């Protein structure tokens, strides 16, 4: 499985949490610059896979990054005290220990404004993070994740349908940023329409790796039935009809 272009190689990865196998014997590789979707039912180990790749969790097996990779991470749910008076500007300043948290320079302020401009959130700079709506928080988190120019962006369930400046959804934004910044992107998604449209590679996880490859190869009725159980195939059928009728993204599974 030696791939010359591989950025990441994962071999026989297993993760145990509280004496239970969450991920067992998963192997795959990812090329630099690709967008990879991790799909699977709830509780199948997708977020755990992310956390292992990010080096947050102990694991067995091998995770090999062939180049020194800097990570940006947008987690799915942030549980923080909403009364914590951290502002969006301060959240950025925390990313740069040397930028002067207490007395930031003009140039850093300009960089922060610029980063927020990218996600259409420049008006949020003085708002408290705890007062942001879900969509606003997600934009800010994307901007902060990109602030230190990462090579790899991990995105746990971007909320589909959040508008970022008019018509652009969060997926369009990610696609655009990935191209512009030459990012490798990992995203967890339940939205198979999005997956098939925007990603280069799909990993189907349900404790074990059930499939891996280009979306048109992987997202077949048979594979999905194996991954989600029998309802998924029915779902997908309806979903295609619906999409034809309304030209709209399907509901998440």
């Amino acid at each position, binding site marked *: 499985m030696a791939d010359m272009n591989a950025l990441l190689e994962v071999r026989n990865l297993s993760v145990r949490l509280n004496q239970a196998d969450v991920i067992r014997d998963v192997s795959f590789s990812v090329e630099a610059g690709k967008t990879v979707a991790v799909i699977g039912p709830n509780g199948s180990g997708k977020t755990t896979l992310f956390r292992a790749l990010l*080096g947050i969790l102990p694991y067995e097996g091998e995770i090999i990054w062939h180049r020194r990779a800097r990570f940006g*991470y947008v987690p799915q749910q942030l549980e923080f005290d909403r*009364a914590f*008076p*951290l502002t969006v500007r301060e959240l950025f300043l925390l990313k740069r*220990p040397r930028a002067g948290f207490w007395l930031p320079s003009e140039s850093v302020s300009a960089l922060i404004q610029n980063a927020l401009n990218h996600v259409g959130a420049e008006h949020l700079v003085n708002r408290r993070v705890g007062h942001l709506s879900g969509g606003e928080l997600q934009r800010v988190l994307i901007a902060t994740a990109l602030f230190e120019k990462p090579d790899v962006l991990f995105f746990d369930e971007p909320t589909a349908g959040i508008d970022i400046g008019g018509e652009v959804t969060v997926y369009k934004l990610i696609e655009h940023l990935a191209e512009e910044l030459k990012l490798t992107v990992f995203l967890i998604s339940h939205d198979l329409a999005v997956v098939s449209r925007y990603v280069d590679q799909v990993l189907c996880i349900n404790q074990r790796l059930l499939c891996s490859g280009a979306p048109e190869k992987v997202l077949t009725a048979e594979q999905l039935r194996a991954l989600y159980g029998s309802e998924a195939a029915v779902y997908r059928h309806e979903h295609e009809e619906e999409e034809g009728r309304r030209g709209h993204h399907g509901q998440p599974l």
Partner: protein
Amino acid sequence: MSDSTTLTLVGLMIALAAGLLGIFVVSRRMSLVADALSHVSLPGVSLALRFGFDPFFGALGVLIFAVLGIEGIQRRRPALRDTLVGVTFTAALAVGILIGTDEGLLESLFGSIEKMDRATALSAILGGLLILGLTAVNFQRFAKITFSSEIAASEGISVKRSNLLFLLLLALSVAIGLKTIGVLLMGALIILPAATARNLSRTLRSMTVVTLMVAAADVLLGFRVAEQFNLLPGPTVVVIGALIFLVSLLARPVEQHFHHAGH
């Protein structure tokens, strides 16, 4: 240095150190942990009084032991933290009272001015400086973990080590308050300035500055009132702190109203 200058300096040191840590205690919803730690030190104080060594070291020893114990068990059974803290808290209080018979116990619990000897002053000032220095150096790391330990970990911050350092600093802050404020009241001195500042601040940076100002005001006012009316300094400082907190609650709706109007 005169006695009252030393006392003021010691009080300021304790309040600033405890107050600064309090920013993260309050924001991480760990108020119960701070309270529990101040009770946990009791058996250490009792032992020290029994065997005739400085209660500061008795308290510090038991506090560090408790912090490491709670951390260790929590790592294996994370869901247990609340229960664990509660049980340790009460058990320690009970054990402390069973062991302790000396009347010195009361002073350790609620503080006293007469007991201000050189060693007490020195340990409080040095301990306070250590807490202020290490917290200042780690401030951004602590803030990041408070916002999201997941994101902090993904950036290569060792969350476990950082949290352990934080708990150890918290334990030290309780120990240095032992004789002046009293261990039982240190929980309040950790929480009150930050809780007050949060009501008055719109950014983390202003909350930090206001916390330190409120902590200093609590102690300076508290000591002055205690002296005037011949009261125990610890309880007086806490009552003054609680009053200032209540006033800050009245200020909060104004700030929120302002915030909404600003949308």
